[in-house]
């Protein structure tokens, strides 16, 4: 059997024993395979390397809590026919927005629908207890909701101690700048990629923390610029993708997820924001889209 390998032989994974034996003795087929490999590399770079659809985020500054239905989806088509699609990771981006509201009065019977994200519910109140991986949140004992977390649950915590800042962490820092030194009002650890944001002190600086001391650190920006940052007891430290152990019992907490038949919540996000009166406007109803929205809302609140 001297027939050369055809495309089918070369594209089958794994290559058959027959094909492997042929390749060992056929330089032409090895060259042919290498060419397909080159072409496949280019295709895979374009397909598998395609970045996630860019999230278009809008920040609704802190202020009066919005009620009602929130923003209208961009098209009636989506609103009437594709509500469930809005819950997909990334599919709903840019095609709808959702409002997550915090503050008094947003909890009704424990859970409230998140406007714009079909099936998504929220609850808020005091973090009463951490029971393993379950977070118990509620305005009062009668309204407490058990929110089960998983490895995919996004946990964002504000009000962390300065000591949670570590060398090598990526961070976004906002605050007034004086004589080349940034006086940090807000440090968001783990924040990346949030753009189009402004704070009362101008756009936040982004980079990697180094040379950490008790009174500040150096922020190394992507272009290599080194920015001196000072911290104080007034600096609010927030962590995106924090650990459950960093949640503070007794602090105001929001839980967002899908209601289970037993009344518990399968949480996709747990949040301890810096302020009760914050509205998070997200596009996309996924943990990652929420991370971005939270980052921007936190900054706006700084």
């Amino acid at each position, binding site marked *: 059997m001297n027939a050369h390998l055809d495309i089918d032989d070369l594209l089958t994974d794994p*290559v058959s024993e027959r094909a492997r034996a042929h390749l060992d003795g056929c330089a032409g087929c090895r060259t042919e395979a*290498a*060419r397909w490999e080159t*072409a496949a*590399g280019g*295709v895979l770079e374009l397909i598998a390397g395609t970045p996630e659809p860019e999230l278009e985020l809008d920040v609704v500054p802190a202020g009066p809590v919005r009620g009602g239905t929130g923003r209208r989806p961009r098209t009636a088509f989506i609103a009437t026919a594709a509500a469930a699609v809005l819950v997909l990771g990334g599919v709903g981006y840019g095609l709808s927005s959702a409002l997550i509201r915090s503050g008094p009065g947003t909890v009704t019977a424990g859970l409230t629908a998140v406007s714009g994200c079909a099936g998504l519910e929220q609850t808020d109140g005091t973090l009463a207890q951490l029971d393993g991986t379950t977070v118990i949140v509620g305005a009062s004992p009668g309204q407490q909701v058990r929110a089960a977390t998983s490895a995919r649950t996004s946990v964002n915590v504000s009000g962390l101690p300065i000591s949670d800042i570590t060398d090598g962490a990526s961070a976004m820092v906002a605050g007034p700048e004086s004589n080349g030194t940034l006086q940090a009002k807000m440090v968001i650890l783990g924040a990346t990629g949030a753009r189009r944001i402004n704070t009362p002190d101008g756009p936040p600086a982004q980079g990697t923390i180094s040379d950490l001391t008790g009174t500040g650190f150096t922020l190394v920006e992507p272009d290599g610029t080194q920015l001196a940052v000072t911290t104080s007891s007034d600096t609010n430290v927030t962590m995106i993708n924090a650990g459950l152990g960093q949640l503070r019992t007794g602090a105001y907490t929001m839980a967002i997820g899908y209601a289970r038949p037993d009344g518990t919540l399968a949480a996709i996000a747990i949040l301890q924001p810096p302020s009760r009166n914050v509205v998070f406007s997200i596009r996309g109803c996924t943990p990652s889209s929420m991370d971005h929205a939270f980052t921007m809302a936190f900054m706006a609140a700084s």
Partner: protein
Amino acid sequence: MSGPGQVTTHGATRDDAQRASDCDLLRLIALRDEGAMAELYRRYGRIVFGQILLVVGERTLAEEILQDTMLAVWRGADSYRGESVVLSWVIAIARRRTRDRMRGRRLRVVDETFAGEQASPDPGPELVALDRAELAEVTAAIRLLAPAHREVLGLALGTGLSLPEVADVLEIPVGTVKSRLAAARNALDRVLTEKGLNR
């Protein structure tokens, strides 16, 4: 790559268990299970989006077609008969949605001019440019190919579908898939040479 001279596809790896699981997901989606829909998207959303984008070349349009596709999956999951693997079923929907969107535009998803091109049983011609091209040059050249060439390369090399599954998606015989693939790769080499992308 698992060894020298081997060409493998690096898209979704699917074994029997996962195929069954995919089918289960569609059954749940037919029952309006949003979590199942999310899981299906988690598994294949990027591949389907990448394939659409590869063909249409416009990100915004690709996003809209992806949305159309997933909505069609949500609405039509109960029409899945298990006659093809789930990924090829979804990609076939994406292809039809792409065709609908592109109707009236110059782009043709299927170009019949390739029907006459036959794959040689011998090792290919001296594809010198392809032999020495770097990855960035290859990706740039792929973007310059005809849509039908980009489509077949994407399906065969980027999604993990087998050639019979690609044929199923394209609704053409396997032999035509092979000849179209060979034509696409030859065109890739020509573009690399003509555009001087590898010099």
